[in-house]
């Protein structure tokens, strides 16, 4: 009925600063099981009734946490990712923005070694509407439903979700994979899971300029995916060589252009819309 997270998911929060606390509270109000917090030096205390531990290993041993939600500041975030991975947490959601790329390269090699899945960094997180919100997205715009959403962008995802909810389609699970050049799960990894999920009848995929993740997704869709996909690629009007906010959103050396991505996706049978306002209506037509 969803992928990666559900009502049973038990979350440990790393990084209980003001932003971490605010969002952890929002997640809990949504119904997410926040079972532990980790703050080195504060082990044995509690935060709003949630036990706080010195290490993720302690938190996992005591609470059975199976998902880490990371708000740790950028200079220390890669360390937090590694800590969760080595503690045996199977799914890590990293919200932190601005992590140095080479730190992420190191963190990624740890994730590979431990077989840990990661969403992010620099992303809104993941939500299975009505069951679990593990991230910073506004919960109320989501409705339980049958469309999977994967996106490199935050607010543009909310836009798509809003349109899907307004059309009564709802969402099975929404994943913000983030806009950084080195990241955890990519489009293909998410598509593989949506392909196997019976509750998901269609997928909205929101890409942006830079890199080749959309082209790789197009190749995978063409070969494996039977479900309809609607896509928008942000940045068709962005000039080459200028970074558009996200560290990964740059057209460099003739690659990463929106038009190339759109073409690859269209060739794979994906319905590509040129206006982000058309995502919801296009999906409604596809799954009617």
């Amino acid at each position, binding site marked *: 009925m969803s992928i990666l997270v559900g009502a049973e998911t038990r979350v440990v929060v790393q990084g209980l600063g003001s932003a971490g606390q605010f*969002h952890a509270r*929002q997640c809990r109000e949504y119904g997410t099981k926040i079972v532990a917090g980790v703050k080195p030096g504060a082990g044995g205390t509690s935060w709003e009734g949630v036990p706080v531990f010195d290490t993720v290993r302690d938190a996992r041993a005591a609470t059975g946490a199976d998902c880490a939600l990371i708000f740790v500041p*950028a*200079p220390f975030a890669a360390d937090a990712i590694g800590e969760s991975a080595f503690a045996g947490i199977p799914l890590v959601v990293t919200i932190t923005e*601005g*992590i*140095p*790329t*080479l*730190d992420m*390269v*190191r963190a*990624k*090699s740890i994730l590979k070694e431990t077989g840990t899945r990661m969403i992010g960094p620099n992303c809104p997180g993941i939500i299975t509407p009505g069951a679990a919100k593990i991230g*910073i*997205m*506004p919960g*109320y*715009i989501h409705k339980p439903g049958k469309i999977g959403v994967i*996106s*490199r*962008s*935050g*607010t*543009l*995802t*909310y*836009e798509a979700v*809003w349109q899907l909810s307004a059309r009564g389609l709802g969402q099975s699970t929404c994943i913000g994979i983030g*806009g950084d*050049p*080195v990241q955890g799960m990519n489009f293909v990894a998410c598509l593989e899971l949506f392909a196997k999920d019976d509750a998901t009848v269609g997928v909205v995929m*929101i890409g*942006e300029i830079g*890199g*080749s*993740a959309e082209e*790789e997704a197009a190749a995978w869709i063409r070969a494996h995916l039977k479900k309809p996909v609607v896509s928008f690629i*942000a*940045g*068709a*009007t*962005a*000039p080459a*060589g*200028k*970074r*558009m*906010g*996200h*560290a*990964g*959103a740059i057209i460099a*050396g*003739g690659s990463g252009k*929106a038009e190339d991505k759109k073409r690859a996706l269209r060739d794979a049978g994906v319905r590509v819309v*040129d*206006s*982000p*306002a058309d995502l919801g209506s296009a999906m409604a037509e596809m799954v009617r």
Partner: protein
Amino acid sequence: MNIHEYQAKGLFREAGIPVPRGIVCRSVDDVGRAYHELGSAVAVVKAQIHAGGRGKAGGVRLAKSRDEAVAHAKALLGSTLVTHQTGPEGRRVGLLLVEEGLKIAKECYAAIAIDRRRGGPTLIAASEGGVEIESLPQEKLLKEPIAVPDGLFPFQARAVAYGLGLKGDSARAGADLLTALARLFLAKDCSIAEINPLVLLEDGRVLALDAKINFDENALFRHPRIDQLRDPAEEDPAEARAAKFNLSYVSLDGNIGCMVNGAGLAMGTMDIIQHHGGAPANFLDVGGGASVERVTEAFQIICDDENVRAILVNIFGGIVKCDLIAEGILGAVKATKLKVPLVVRLEGTNVERGRALLRDSGLPIQTAADMTDAAKKAVEAAR
């Protein structure tokens, strides 16, 4: 973050990567003295700007005498150089690098960049240099993944050196150079380190004739010395001003100013404006927590762009509440004495209260029902 060629060569030298002898010059007199000091019959006068394509644009000139070097300096210093990377407005040349001329036997290419597909840095090299690397077919590129934090392994460095056609002592020198480049890339948190061309000299030496380094902005906190290499003259003043307020701003050629929260939605807003026949004047991401101060500053930056004929605000208030954003917009409109039409599209938490605030303000603000409506209204207003 970009730095100048001469600065990159300074870092190369420290890292043990051979570069030509050269002297940085700020004046015509400096160039005359530099020519003598270098003592080579031929010298190269190179304009220092943060953009590629200098050679084709006349920014790199050979001098066979002191007089010639001085003449080049007079022509270049203070001039505006337009290359395919600077845009039509070009860049003002304030610094020159004067280097010894060298007898080149062969030009190659080497660069290290982050390969997103692999999720790590990769060395890319080609035995044809001095050209646009993008124009080379994939099969001509030599690629080696770089382990972090180990760097390039000796077998990888050797393989690339041989692949470039280097032999004997030159191959060893080439391998050492590439190893040092990888070490520098990892030690200084580069995002790109490029040598184009990497040259084999007639005497067998291998060196970096050009040097380009880009740094990961997110890692500058641990490289204070690198951060000081920043050249404010090379930065777009509006973009630098925006950066001070944590706003991500890029100026563009159109006439519809945009203020959006989130990079993806900001790009999407630019796209939808164009989709409806308009042209965005900028990319501007006010970030998730669009505070009154940031919204006001963002407005000020947009209003200072003389090309702006209309402004489109597109905010999806998720965590940030729409009524707070509306208050920010109203405050900013009053503070900036806005003179162009303003279209606002708000969606999300407390949207009704936000829209009511805008409607009841008595200010000339058009509200829009959705993104399409907003884009159409803004395009119409800018006509």
